[in-house]
C-alpha cells in the first residue's frame, strides 16, 4: 500500500505587494517513495546514498539539509551535477513543474553528499512513476 505525496506549503510574500499562498494539494496517491534520511558528521566526503533511477520516471523528488552540504551525482570525480544545497530550504520538483526546473540533469546512478565543518541532517525522497 502506497503513501500520499502532498505539497503542504508554498508561500511567498512580496512585502505586501503580492502574496502567493495556495492551499495544500495532493500530488500523488498510492506511491512507494524511496527515502534516504541520514545524519552526516562534520567533514563528510562523498557519503553515498545508494539510490539510482531514471529521471524520466520521477514524479516528485525533494532534497533537504539543515546545515551546509554539497550534492554530487553519479561520480565523485566527474559528477553529472554538483549542487550547493540551500540550508533549511528544500529543493522540490514534481510533475506539475517545468522539466527544466528539475535539479538533476540526467539519470542517477548514485548521489553523494559532502558536509562542511558542521553536522548535517540530510533528506532525499523520490517517487517514481
Amino acid at each position: 500500500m502506497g503513501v500520499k505525496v502532498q505539497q503542504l506549503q508554498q508561500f511567498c510574500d512580496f512585502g505586501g505587494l503580492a502574496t502567493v499562498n495556495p492551499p495544500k494539494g495532493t500530488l500523488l496517491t498510492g506511491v512507494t517513495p524511496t527515502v534516504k534520511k541520514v545524519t552526516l558528521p562534520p567533514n563528510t566526503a562523498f557519503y553515498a546514498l545508494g539510490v539510482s533511477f531514471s529521471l524520466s520516471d520521477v514524479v516528485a523528488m525533494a532534497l533537504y539539509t539543515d546545515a551546509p552540504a554539497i550534492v554530487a551525482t553519479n561520480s565523485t570525480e566527474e559528477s553529472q551535477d554538483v549542487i550547493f544545497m540551500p540550508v533549511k530550504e528544500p529543493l522540490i520538483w514534481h510533475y506539475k513543474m517545468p522539466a527544466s526546473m528539475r535539479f538533476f540533469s540526467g539519470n542517477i546512478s548514485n548521489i553523494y553528499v559532502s558536509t562542511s565543518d558542521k553536522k548535517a541532517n540530510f533528506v532525499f525522497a523520490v517517487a517514481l512513476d
Partner: protein
Amino acid sequence: MTSIKIIEEITFGNLRIGGVPAVIDQGDGSLVWEQNINPNTNNLPYLFPFFVNLCSVMVASSDVDGVVIKTNNSGSPDDQFTLYKDNPLMWDLNKPTSMRFLTSDVTQIFVTNPDETKTAHVKLAVKMSLLND
C-alpha cells in the same frame, strides 16, 4: 528594502520536508504583475521588463490550470512555462541557477488562458537589484 518570505514544504507519507521560512533580503526592487486573464485568451502581450541575472526571487502563479506564459516572442519564446492551480513556481537565489523558470532577460510576456469558462488570476513577481547599484 523589502524582505521576501518564502516557505516550501512537501510530504512523502509521514515524512515532512521543508516548512522553515526563508527570508530573502538581497535585491532592492520588486516588479509585480497581476492580471485577470479572460477565458480563451491567446498570447495576450504585457510589458514586464527585467534582467534575469539581477533577479534574486521569481514567483509565478495562476488559479486556473493550463495558463501558459511565454517571454519576448509568442512564436519562438525565450522561455515558456505552464502554470497549474495551487502549484506556483518559485525560485530564489539560494537555489541552483539551473532551477530558474525564467532564464533570459525579459521585455514582454505573452499570456494564454486556454480554459473555456474560467477567468484566470495570474501573478508574476520578481525581486531584483537596481542597475545603478
